């Protein structure tokens, strides 16, 4: 699933800002980044490249929920 894992986050928030499609947010609980909207990931890797501690893992495939009825 596109952006897959954030491990070793230092909570700097750079990935949140760097994502063009607003996929990542900082958790109000621990201040660490988490994947909030994975379905909007365009797999561009900007978050990974901007991350100062290489905490982000991304995979090339994208799986999705089944399309159901009427929105």
């Amino acid at each position, binding site marked *: 699933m596109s952006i897959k894992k954030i491990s070793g986050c230092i909570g700097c928030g750079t990935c949140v800002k760097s994502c*063009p499609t607003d996929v990542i947010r900082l958790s109000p609980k621990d201040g660490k980044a988490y994947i909030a909207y994975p379905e909007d990931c365009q797999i561009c*890797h900007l978050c990974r490249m901007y991350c100062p501690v290489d905490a982000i893992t991304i995979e090339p495939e994208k799986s999705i*929920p089944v399309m159901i*009825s*009427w*929105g």
Partner: protein
Amino acid sequence: MSDKSDKGMSRRQFLGLTGGVVGAAALASIGFKYRGTKNERKIDPENMNYKENETDILVIGGGMTGLFAAVKGHDAGAKVLMVSKGRLGSSGQTPFAKGIFSYDAATASVSLDEFTEQVSSSALKTNNPVFTRQMAEHSKARVDELREWGFFDSPLYYDSFSKPINERNISVMERIMITHLIKENGKIAGAAGFSIDEPTIHIFKAKSVILCTGAGGFKPNGFPICDLTHDGSVMAYKIGAKITGKEWNDGHGGSMDNPAACYDGWHGMFAMSPSKTGVEIHHDLGVDINYRAYVLGNPVSMMPGGDNTIVEGGPYVPEKFVRNREAGAPPGGGNGDKMGPPPGAEAGDRPSGPPPGGEEGRGPGMAAGASSGGASAGMAIHKSEGLVPINEKGESNIPGLYAAGDALGSYMAGAIYTQVGSSLAGSAVQGTIASEAAAEYCQKAVLQNIPSSKISRIKEEILAPLKRDSGYSPAWVTQILQGVMIPNFVIYIKKESILKAALAYVEELRDHHSPMLRAADLHELRLAHETENMIVNAEMKLKASLMRKESRCSHYRLDYPDVDYKNWQAWINIYKGSDGEMKFVKQPFDSWPV
């Protein structure tokens, strides 16, 4: 019970059925959250913060165009505020553009006049030669400034873009989506939008606004434009600006392996530092490859070893620019694409001659493996769509409102991809020129008063999707729109019957679904407004494509396959009529609007 056989179906029912199948098949790798339940809000729309901001020049967008618009407007003496949906240098298409054209009169093989003429020749006169020449003439000066800021030293642009902004102490507000432009007394008065991080509505009062909002698409897989939804053009259209270029198509392909993975499909180019390009004029990224895919079926390949089957018919390509399929190599010794020049021996210089045969030498969609067309669906050739300029400064027909870069329909390159690397250079050049003009405009302009009743109405429109208890999720409406618009027989290989059928769908989405878009949080609120903008763009694309009864450059009609030199030496401009209807008018090539 009514007759359920094929014969008993209405045309509309039949189209509905086929459209649904197409949608499901074409979009198998696009995700969305299904929200069939009541809108479970995480934001209270009745309890939003409200902030007003004032400036001389409001720059909307933080890419290459916005950077130069902010810096040069400031240097020309204006107070500048930049607002961006994303982060400076990390949103829109700028982060992924790795080649920038630099014309050096001292060493160039052709004169400026010859360069302009060659572009016009490839573009079949669809280019505006004033903008073509302007881009080349000023490109080196902008590239030299970028070098000074450290642009060529890193694959990531935030630091180099921040340098001139910080040195000048220019205000930047990030992660704010602008949804409205505001016009008062016939002049631009500002803009409005909302933060995607905190529940705050922002009103910006400005003497001048420069749209540096880029272009857009239908959030297609495999191309990094999923944050670009023609926001600038649509909000400008709504206040009376003229829009052009909607019949043209960018013809980028994408990899069929992991088709949603932009990074992988572009073979690591995103991780490379940018470099310069020299004169290299093509007739690329039109619909020729998509025509092959339509006739022969997938996969298609532009690379050596690809299928060399001769396909009859298809888009006209001027003799001089025909791609040499026999040799299997793209023309001009380049990689046949606009992006991805490999790094040169010196930082910032692209080596001459053909690129190395390795992965790095390939452009997007040019993998050794199979590729498919339509990766950038919804987007036209760079700078061939957007606001109609009334002069070489990127001024619109609304006083004080300017556009530059991919938000401006300057036809700098024409309706086909001509000069490699000119997109990024043109953005820098146009951002500069528009902002210097805006700064001059500001010297005589005053801030317009915006009535509180109008601000109240805008707030309501911004928050409407949050306030709906039921409705349609933007992700689902977007997916339906993609199913209607992305197939190659709709906006690539066009014919009247299908364009009309697709238009019936889009008008349904416009009239019924746009007003019922719902959002539970600020992320979804952004998606809701983006979806609405994409629906307007779809209507423009279909209607302009129906109107242009010929084929030329990146617009191809199966039912009108030839270039019509008699009736169609003209661009199509779109504007909102006094009755609210979308109107279309021809503007002869090489002229300015009357």
